[in-house]
C-alpha cells in the first residue's frame, strides 16, 4: 500500500500539535435546493501533504473541491488558506490552482500558450514566463511539445500539460479533480507514481478528488473518506484500511466480512455473541461499552485462514461452512463460503504455488479462522 520513499514515513504533521495547517475548513455547508452536498464539514490539511478526498459519486467531494477553488461559495462556514480567509475570494484571486477532470486545455492556444496563460495574468516579464514554461514542460517530460496544439496530443500528454499549467504558478495548494479518470488502466498506474514524484519535487500541497480507492491508497499521505456530505474518517491509508472507524469505511475500502452481534464483557477475554457466526467471536481488546451493546466485527478476506482440516478444539474464532463459489484471480483465489447460518463469508488466499489441482473445491466443508488481532470491532 503506502510504499512511498523513506522520507514519507516520518512525515506526519497532522499528529504534531505545533504544526499549523495550510488549509482549514471549518463547518462548511453547501446545498443545492433541497439537496445538501456538503454538510457541516471541517477539515485541516497540512503543508506538503498529498491529501485524497475519496468517496462514491454524489458524496460531495467535488463540491468541496470546487469550494476550495472558489467556484462555489459555501452557504455557511469558513475556508482559511495559510491563515487568510478565502471564503468570499473569487477563484481568480486565490493562490490555489486546479487541474480539471477534462483537463480543460484552451483549444485555441498552443501548449506553451496554455502553460503561460496563468503567468501572463500575473503580468510577469516575458523572459521569466519563458523560462518558467520551459521548466514546467521539463518537469512533466514534454520539453519538445511547446508548439503543439492540444488536439495534437494524446490523452496522457494532455494530462501532463494540464498538470504543468496548474503547477507553473506555484500555487499554495494544487487541487486535482479525478486527474487520472480519463486514462486507461496501465497509464493510470504509471502516472500515479509520477504524480507522487512530481509532488515531492515541487513540494506543493496536493488535494485530489477520486472515487478510485487504489489511486487514493497509492498516492495519498492521508485520505478523507466521505459519505453524504460528511467526512466518515480521515487517516493515513494504512489506518483507513486496518483501522476503519465504521462499517461504511470498512466496506468502502477493499472488501470485508462483517459480523453483527452483541458485546459480552468479561475480564481479559472480551467476546461478541454472534448468531450469524454460530459462535462467540473473541475480540482483541475490551471495549468501553455496556454488555449487550450492538457491535460489528470486520475481518478482511485475506486475513482469514481457510483449510479443510478441522482445527484443534478450543481454537478461537473458528467458523465452518461449505464452499459456495471460487473466484480465481491469478494472484489470489477468493472462496465464498456459506456458513451453517446461511451467511456468506469471503476468504482470500494467495496462490503461492502454480495451481494445477485445487486442494479446496466446490461443496467442500472448510474451516475459517483468524487471530483476534486481525479483526476490528466497530460500533457504527
Amino acid at each position, binding site marked *: 500500500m503506502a510504499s512511498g520513499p523513506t522520507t514519507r514515513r516520518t512525515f506526519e504533521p497532522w499528529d504534531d500539535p505545533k504544526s499549523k495547517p495550510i488549509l482549514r475548513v471549518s463547518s462548511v455547508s453547501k446545498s443545492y435546493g433541497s439537496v445538501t452536498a456538503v454538510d457541516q464539514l471541517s477539515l485541516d490539511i497540512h503543508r506538503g501533504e498529498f491529501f485524497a478526498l475519496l468517496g462514491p459519486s454524489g458524496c460531495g467531494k467535488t463540491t468541496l473541491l470546487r469550494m476550495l*477553488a*472558489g*467556484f462555489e461559495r459555501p452557504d455557511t462556514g469558513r475556508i482559511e488558506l495559510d491563515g487568510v480567509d478565502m471564503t468570499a475570494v*473569487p*477563484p*481568480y*484571486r*486565490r493562490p*490555489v*490552482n*486546479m487541474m*480539471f*477532470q*477534462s483537463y*480543460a*486545455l*484552451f*483549444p*485555441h492556444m498552443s501548449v506553451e500558450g496554455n502553460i503561460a*496563460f*496563468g503567468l501572463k*495574468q*500575473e503580468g510577469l516579464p516575458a523572459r521569466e514566463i519563458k523560462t518558467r514554461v520551459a521548466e514546467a514542460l521539463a518537469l512533466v517530460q514534454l520539453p519538445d511539445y511547446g508548439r503543439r*496544439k492540444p*488536439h*495534437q*496530443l*494524446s*490523452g*496522457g*500528454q494532455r494530462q501532463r500539460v494540464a498538470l504543468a*499549467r*496548474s503547477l507553473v*504558478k506555484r500555487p499554495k495548494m494544487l487541487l486535482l479533480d479525478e486527474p487520472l479518470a480519463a486514462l486507461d488502466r496501465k497509464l493510470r498506474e504509471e502516472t500515479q507514481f509520477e504524480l507522487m514524484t512530481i509532488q515531492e519535487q515541487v513540494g506543493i500541497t496536493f488535494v485530489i478528488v477520486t472515487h478510485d480507492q487504489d489511486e487514493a491508497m497509492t498516492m495519498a499521505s492521508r485520505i478523507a473518506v466521505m459519505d453524504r456530505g460528511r467526512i466518515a474518517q480521515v487517516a493515513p491509508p494504512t489506518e483507513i484500511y486496518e483501522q476503519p472507524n465504521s462499517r461504511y469505511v470498512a466496506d468502502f475500502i477493499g472488501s470485508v466480512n462483517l459480523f453483527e452481534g452483541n458485546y459480552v464483557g468479561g475480564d481479559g477475554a472480551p467476546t461478541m455473541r454472534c448468531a450469524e457466526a454460530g459462535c462467540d467471536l473473541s475480540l482483541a481488546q475490551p471495549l468501553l461499552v455496556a454488555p449487550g451493546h450492538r457491535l460489528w466485527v470486520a475481518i478482511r478476506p485475506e486475513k482469514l485462514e481457510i483449510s479443510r482440516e478441522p482445527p484443534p478444539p478450543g481454537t478461537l474464532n473458528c467458523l465452518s461452512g461449505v464452499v459456495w463459489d471460487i473466484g480465481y484471480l491469478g494472484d489470489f483465489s477468493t472462496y465464498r463460503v456459506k456458513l451453517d447460518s446461511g451467511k456468506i463469508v469471503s476468504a482470500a488466499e494467495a496462490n503461492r504455488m502454480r495451481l494445477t489441482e485445487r486442494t479446496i473445491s466446490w461443496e467442500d466443508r472448510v474451516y475459517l479462522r483468524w487471530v483476534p488481532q486481525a479483526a476490528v470491532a466497530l460500533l457504527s
Partner: protein
Amino acid sequence: MRRGLTPINLTALTLGFAFLYVPIFLLIIYSFNESKLVTVWAGFSTKWYGEMARDDALIAAALMTLKVALLSSTVATVLGTLAGVLLARFGRFRGRTLFSGMIYAPLVMPEVITGLALLLMFVAMGLARGYFTVMIAHATFAMAYVAVVVQSRLATMDRSVEEAALDLGCPPFKTFLVITLPIIAPAVIAGWLLAFTLSLDDLVIASFTTGPGSTTLPMKIYSQVRLGVTPEINAISTILVGIVTIGVVAASLVNRRAALRRERDERLAFAKT
C-alpha cells in the same frame, strides 16, 4: 438493422431534395430564356441580366437592403451574443423567464404582428421611418436567432475551460474575451450570417416599418411579382441564390479542408502513443 441507405431511405432523400431544389433550378434555367414568357423556352440569352443592371430603382433597392442587412446583423450579433451568454451562463437571474420568453417568441411570432407592433412603436416614439427603423426592426428579430445559435454552442462547450481561466487568475470579463469568445467564434459568425440573410430576405416587417424612399429589394421584387412573372425577376433571383450558394459552399469547403488536415494530425498523435 436499417442502418445506411436502404432503398426507402434513398427514395425519401431523393424525392425530398428534388422537391426542395427543382423549383430553384427551374427558376435559374428560365432566367436565361430569350422569351418574355417564363414557360416557353426560346433559346439561351443573358439579356434579362442586362435589363436588370439598367434598372436604377432596383439597384438602389439592392443597395438599401445591403446597408440595412449589414447594420442590423451587426447590432443583432452583439446583442444576441450577449443574450445567448446570459441564457447559457448566468443561471437564474431576476426576470429570466420574461427574458427567455422575449428571446424565443420572435422565432415563431407571425411577422405581421411583429411588423405592426414595431411600426406603432416607432410612430409613438416619433421616429422618422426609413432605413434606420427597418434596421432596428431587423436587429430585434434577428437577435433572437443569434441568441439561440450562441446559446446552443455554449451549452455544448466544456465549462471547465472557462473555469480553468478563472482559476489561473484571469478575471471573468477578460475570460469572456480571451477564452469564451474565440471558442464560440464560429457560432457567432454563423449567427451574424443568419441575421444578415434574414434581413436580406425580409419583406413583411420591412414593409411595415419602412418609410417613403426606403424601398428594400424584397419589397421591390414583391411589387413586381404581383404584376406577373417576368424573366427579370428570375435573373435577380438567380444572382441572389448564386451569391448565397457560393458563400455557403466556400465556407464548407474551407471547413472541410481544415477538418481533413486536423484529422491527419489526430491520427499522428494517436499513433505516437
